[in-house]
């Protein structure tokens, strides 16, 4: 549109004006190229990250082949590494945190859009949005020093000692008190809750008032309006928002590193220590070299590809909405 207008002006102008516009159009194309160049830089940055992880992780992929993804080995002395435990830990902690955060996020969004007094709705949603800005490492410290001891002393340890260690419940509550899968998942859930609830809230506000009012007019209770009218209406966007939360949970590093226990084994219960890809990299990379470093970078590439797929699905589903 812009260029068409430009050529029209040029056709109408006198010789002098044409010369000036021509000089302008040289600067014009320079400016446009600068903008385009900057936009291309995004492609370069993302491609560069992927290339670096591929090149850095190649020795590990080359040596261990497909077995790398299924091996649970993490033997520093013999230089044998496998990614199965961190991959499992990453996916397990993210999914458990999603199971906790999803109902909470729906609850918060419904509360704020349906029955919160208008005076309170704005401050509460601002407070919850601000939760999203707090650095990950601060959540980690809070989880490590406040939340984990609370769960350990008042829930896990009393329950563990209340049951026979060999019984089902005894095994269920056995584990590592201060850093385990469940605590990491709860801290993750608190971290992704603000993202999800603000997406859900926007979606719920986008439901046409006439649709909601029609349902209320039929005599529906709030519960019935939400369950039968609003949730079906925004289902697609909600799945997108959930995937967005999942993407964040998968890649979260510092908070998880503080509270997951960082043990290189499959968790035997919810209260057992394990590790995620991001926490393993954060913990071990500084002291790693050679094949160990390559294995860690290779796991980084796996994490990148997992989050890429999750985010691509999220964007696809949220494409109609603008977030």
């Amino acid at each position, binding site marked *: 549109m*812009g*260029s068409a207008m*430009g050529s029209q*002006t040029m056709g109408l102008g006198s010789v002098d004006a044409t010369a000036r*516009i021509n000089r*302008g159009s040289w*600067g*014009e194309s320079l*400016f*446009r190229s600068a*903008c*385009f160049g*900057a*936009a291309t*830089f*995004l*492609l370069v*940055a*993302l491609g*560069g990250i992927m290339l*670096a992880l591929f090149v*850095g992780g190649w020795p590990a992929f080359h040596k261990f082949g497909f077995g790398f993804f299924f091996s649970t080995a993490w033997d520093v002395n013999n230089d044998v590494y496998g990614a199965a435990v961190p991959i499992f830990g990453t996916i397990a902690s993210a999914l458990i945190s999603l199971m906790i955060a999803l109902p*909470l*996020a729906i*609850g*918060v969004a419904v*509360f704020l859009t349906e*029955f919160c007094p208008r005076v309170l709705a704005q401050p509460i949603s*601002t*407070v*919850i949005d*601000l*939760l999203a800005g*707090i*650095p990950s*490492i*601060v*959540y980690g*410290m*809070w989880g*490590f*020093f406040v939340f984990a001891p609370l769960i350990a002393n008042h829930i896990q340890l009393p329950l563990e000692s209340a049951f026979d260690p060999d019984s089902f419940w005894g095994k269920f509550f056995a584990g590592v008190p201060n850093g385990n899968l469940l605590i990491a998942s709860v801290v993750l859930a*608190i971290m992704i*809750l*603000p993202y999800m609830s603000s997406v859900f809230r926007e979606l719920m506000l986008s439901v046409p008032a006439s649709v909601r009012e029609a349902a209320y007019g039929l005599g529906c209770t709030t*519960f*019935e309006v939400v369950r039968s009218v609003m949730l079906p209406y925004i289902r697609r966007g909600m799945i997108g928002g959930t995937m*967005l939360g999942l993407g964040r949970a998968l*890649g*979260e*590093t510092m908070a998880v590193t503080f509270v997951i226990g960082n043990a290189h084994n499959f968790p035997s219960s919810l209260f057992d220590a394990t590790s995620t890809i*991001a926490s393993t990299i*954060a913990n071990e990379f*500084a002291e790693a070299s050679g094949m160990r470093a390559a294995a860690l970078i290779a796991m*980084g590439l796996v*994490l*990148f590809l997992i*989050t*890429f797929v999750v*985010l691509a699905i999220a964007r696809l589903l949220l494409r109609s909405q603008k977030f």
Partner: protein
Amino acid sequence: MNRALRRRLANYIFVGACLLATGLAVLSLTSLFISLFWNGFSGLNMLTLTKDSGLIAAQDPNGPQLGGLYDGIVGSLVMSILAMVAALFIGIFAGTWLAEYAGESHTGNIIRFLNDVLLSAPSILVGLAVYTYIFIVMTWHNTPQYTYSGLAGAAALAILALPVIVRTTEDMLLLQPAQLREAGVALGASRGLVIRQIIWRAARTGLLTGGLLAFARISGETAPLLFTAFGNGQSIALRHFISGIADKTSALPLLINSLYQSPLTVNFAWTAALLISLAVLAVNILGRFLARGSRHS
């Protein structure tokens, strides 16, 4: 009658559950802040703000009190500001291209998608990638002592700030009314001139908001700095700024990560966490405040 009662009861339970969910969310934020102030506020004194953390690390049980967080504060500020300069420069141009030139073109949509991916990419991987490149170059150049540096940290932070700025720039420019552009073009200004002189100026507050949000995001990041800035017990001396930034550099989040592990130094970690949370919140609130102002005007 029975049925009406059941419906009402279900509704009460649902309302209660929603209230409980919101309560839990607000409660966790409150608990976080109470513990930050409870443990961190007492450490907030002039000594903490003016002494280097290298002095804390002394193993002497009476030693810790001599040090502070000065190097972390300076390092975080320097790296975040350098990163913001780079990210604002590239991000505003990229956002302008998306808003003004790309339209609904195929390339535009691909770049938008890549920006969204970069926006949510795990931050530790950005640090890892920057490290990998610098490691390769420095090994090849035979100067491994420069593998970790404040510049590398700033580069990693810039990549994290960039997508935030691109996104807000595009949104803010698209908010500007089309009549503004048409009026500029009708006066004979070229498209580029209209963007630079009119649209950017009209969207000034919005662009500033985007910058503040990006600043808030990167100033608390730890993971991307672990293998780039690495940490250093001494602050960047102003006189040796260049050599300081080319060396390992301290940052507040990195200090939290190293100081929380010993009971002797954990109070410093709490103080650092309090400082960084307050800074991030202040910047976020300022950004929101500006955004609200610009929406009304």
